[in-house]
């Protein structure tokens, strides 16, 4: 079956196509070359003047796993304001800060997204993370296994095991948990918190293991490189939210020693200590470092004003942040000698100096980092804001006068402390297509996604160009997933399941001998039961597994 999208204006940065009239042909779920003239086209969509991009990809969104489910259970009042009724096609649920899995899938698709990646899958909780992702329809999914504070790894590092053994362990984790990448959160800090350490700088040692966050970062970044994992080590650094952490972040970039590294929600790690309130923007220094170091990519973790909930593996920093909980309830957990988590509801206020400056710092970062291939659009959903605010964020980036209007409405001192008003840059549609499609696909190693060339999977979003970019990106005219029309005029017209993306890096299975001993002695589940079978992911009609190649 052939489908043709005709007369559309195409933005496909992978192929350097910047707003050109092109026809797109789809056959059996994939984009294909123009067929010969005798081939029958089964369906033609006239996209006259409409904007066509690949389906959007969110590479950092907390959509599944224990901490998200704690946030759901904890916040009935937040759901009440955004209840979602069932329809002929779709199931009921609820939205806003910690949406139900089904609603999250529907809303991502209705916004033109076709793939979402959970960045903090605790190995001990990976079965549940996969079950939640399987219950998130419409979009492709995948997750990064979160290690670096797990005792097995810290024991290896403390006993100076060689890098090959560490890489074998990382390879084993990716396979066992069906992950697509590796994330480290407050490296070693989650473990340190269990030993009652309350902060951990880059070169400070975990008091039990005697290893520093820098040691952990280097070992994991090497493992990721050696295993050929396409996505660089995904780093949630030390000292999240701490004024002055800009220095830690700059030092973390240096600690990468030229290896590829992705620093996530960098906005929360770009704070200086200048000014009367000892809180200032470090965005310029961070942007300069990112611009100079082509091995570094970032996502922003933009803050937008309103009620949300912060859900993070960083139990140490979440505990420290609980004093600011709004409403005043919060959860911190230590988990299985593996990891931890913290869930703290939060309300970002535009008239609050710190919150307003956080907002400005995020935007400064977006606008001062030159290369849109190395900066991705995120709010660290739901930590900076719910993902449903992406269209608003896109407007802030594309529309300087709108941005300046917003700037004039926030806390005056924060506005004065920010350089935002002096930045003229506006993102183009081409830039947006890079940072929300082409770049995340490339970063994750998804070769046939994020572009519209022949051979790509036909995940396609079609918009009507509008001056108000928030309106434009809120409600695509058409969304195709694997070549099927799933959204029309911003509403679901067909429910699909989406696939789960994983990797199968090669490693020496000999590592299982020491893992077996470790599990038998210290863990409360068996090694065999820790591993996730393919069947567990695909059963219940929940899509398929796509194994992405390693580099």
């Amino acid at each position, binding site marked *: 079956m052939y489908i043709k999208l005709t007369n559309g204006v195409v933005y496909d940065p992978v192929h350097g196509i910047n707003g050109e009239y092109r026809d797109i042909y789809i056959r059996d779920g994939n984009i294909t070359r123009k067929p010969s003239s005798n081939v029958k086209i089964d369906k033609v969509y006239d996209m006259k003047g409409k904007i066509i991009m690949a389906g959007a990809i969110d590479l950092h969104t907390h959509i*599944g796993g*224990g901490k*998200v*489910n*704690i946030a*759901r*259970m*904890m*916040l*009935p009042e937040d*759901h009440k304001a955004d*209840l*979602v*009724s*069932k329809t002929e096609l779709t*199931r*009921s*649920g*609820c939205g806003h800060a*910690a*949406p*139900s*899995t*089904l609603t999250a899938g529907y809303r991502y698709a209705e916004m033109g997204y076709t793939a979402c990646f959970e960045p903090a899958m*605790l190995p*001990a*909780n990976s*079965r*549940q993370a996969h*079950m939640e992702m399987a*219950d998130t329809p419409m979009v492709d999914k995948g997750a990064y296994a979160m290690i670096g504070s797990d*005792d097995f790894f810290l*024991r290896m590092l403390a006993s100076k095991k060689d890098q090959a053994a560490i890489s074998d362990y990382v390879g084993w984790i990716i396979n066992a948990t069906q992950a697509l990448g590796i994330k480290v959160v407050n490296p070693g800090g989650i473990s340190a*918190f*269990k*030993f*009652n350490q309350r902060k951990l700088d880059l070169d400070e040692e975990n008091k*039990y293991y005697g290893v520093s966050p820098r040691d952990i970062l280097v070992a994991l970044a090497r493992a990721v490189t050696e295993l050929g994992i396409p996505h660089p080590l995904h780093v949630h650094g030390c000292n999240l939210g701490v004024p002055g952490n800009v220095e830690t972040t700059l030092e973390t970039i240096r600690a990468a020693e030229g290896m590829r590294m992705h620093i996530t929600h960098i906005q929360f790690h770009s704070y200086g200590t200048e000014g009367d309130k000892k809180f200032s923007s470090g965005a310029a220094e961070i942007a300069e470092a990112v611009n100079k170091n082509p091995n570094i990519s970032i996502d922003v973790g933009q803050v937008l004003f309103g009620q949300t909930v912060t859900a993070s593996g960083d139990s140490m920093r979440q*505990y420290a942040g609980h004093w600011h909980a709004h409403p*005043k*309830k*919060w*959860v*911190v*957990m*230590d*988990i*299985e*000698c593996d990891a931890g988590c913290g869930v703290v509801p939060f309300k970002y206020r535009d008239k609050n100096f710190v919150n307003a400056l956080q907002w400005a710092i995020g935007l400064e970062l977006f606008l001062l980092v030159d290369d849109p291939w190395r900066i991705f659009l995120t709010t660290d959903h739901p930590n900076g804001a719910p993902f449903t605010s992406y269209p608003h964020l896109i407007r802030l980036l594309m529309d300087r006068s709108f941005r300046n209007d917003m700037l004039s409405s926030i806390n005056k001192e924060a506005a004065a402390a920010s350089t935002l008003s002096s930045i003229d840059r506006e993102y183009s549609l081409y830039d947006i297509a890079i940072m929300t499609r082409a770049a995340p696909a490339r970063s994750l190693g998804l070769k046939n996604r994020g572009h519209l060339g022949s051979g790509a999977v036909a995940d396609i979003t079609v918009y009507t160009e509008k001056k108000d970019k928030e309106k434009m990106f809120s409600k695509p005219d058409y969304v195709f997933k694997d070549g099927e029309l799933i959204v029309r005029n911003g509403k679901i017209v067909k429910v699909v399941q989406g696939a789960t993306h994983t990797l199968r890096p090669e490693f020496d299975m000999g590592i299982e001998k020491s893992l077996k001993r470790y599990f038998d*002695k*210290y*863990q*409360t*589940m*068996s090694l*065999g*039961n820790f591993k996730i*079978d393919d069947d*567990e992911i695909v059963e*219940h009609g929940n899509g398929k597994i796509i194994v992405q190649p390693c580099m």
Partner: protein
Amino acid sequence: MDKKSNASTAITKDVTCPFCGILCDDLVIQNQNNKLKVIENGCSKAIEMFQKELPESSAQIKGKNVSLDDAIDSVCKILKKSHTPLIAGLGTDVSGIRNVMELADKTGAILDHMHGNGLIRNTLVLQDLGWIMTTMAEIKNRADLVIFAGTDATNFSRFYERVIWNKESMFKLKNDDRQIVYIGANLNSKPGINPNGKRPTVLDCETEEIGEIISSLHALVAGATLDVNEVAGIKVKTLQTLAEQMKTAKYGVIVWAPGELDFPHAELTIQNFCETVKYLTRFTRFAGFSLGGNDGGMTANSVCAWQSGYPLRVNFNKGYPDYDAYRYSTHNVLKNKEVDSLLWISSFSSNINTPHASIPTIVMGMPDTKLKFKPDVFIPVSTPGIDHTGQIIRTDSVVSLPLKKVRTSPYASVPSVLNQVIERM
């Protein structure tokens, strides 16, 4: 199945036992001619449940044997006619609950679990002020002070063997370094005697008084003085000693079982535990741990939360999920006649107290279920983890475990029966 078979005998290792919330997954099960024997690591409950022979049973409509197909048709008829069904019991695995959720959305049903009263005691605390919690492997390797509050954990029989008295722990914590304390009424403190004979501290009080004792400990930890000699019959001096122990613990844990704190507003007692833990965490490390989740309770609660946004108890009758932890209890909605049909599911236990209401009632139960009444439809169902594969969530609601099939059952699984119901509706 990692089986070593000879003729008709098969051995399966690493079998998860789904019959209580701590989900031991090290059982070794022998299947000989479809008869099971727990060869290693079975507690008495596991042995009883795995070794119970499959009785003869049949699907029934009003007590008369019928085919499964006819029974499912009858279920559909009842549910189609019903304005607001109650789907309760909910003793099933993840797959079963996924189907329950879909069916509830379709039929506008109210959902509750058979252990809902226990579940919501924790939920109410989570939703009010939150908590700091820990999981089994952390207790096993770190906890130097374990306070059992209102429970002796003996309903979770291998808890001591698996996490309290260890051959080895990762951080060189010896059994003699681990202090055990019991607070409550009629608690069996024997399992708390360590392998070297060291006895635990026991604070004997009424269950309803535990909150008072914990609050006093909280006050003492915070440096307050108490102008009394005794609290709930316990000498303040004893409390002071314990408060000192709590302050100097490196990793203390308060363990409770919400199902065993069965008195009005017991959630306030649980909240006392949690607030004391939070206070102690200002200067040392402390955490709570909840023992529960039997009959797939944690599974039902978790899946309900991720698919609807809310933990149990939820009503789908308005077309969207409406959560009310009190109003939508099985007891209330039956008493107040808010529902006009009942679907009761129990695939992990047969001696459950299925409610008898004067509304059309469907029971999907274990084949040996004995009911005090004849339901409109009875469907014998197989058990996840014995008769079919699946997943189930542990009491800490973090770890979930795969369930194995170790026997062939002639009875259909809850997920498959519900699937057919959904397809025919």
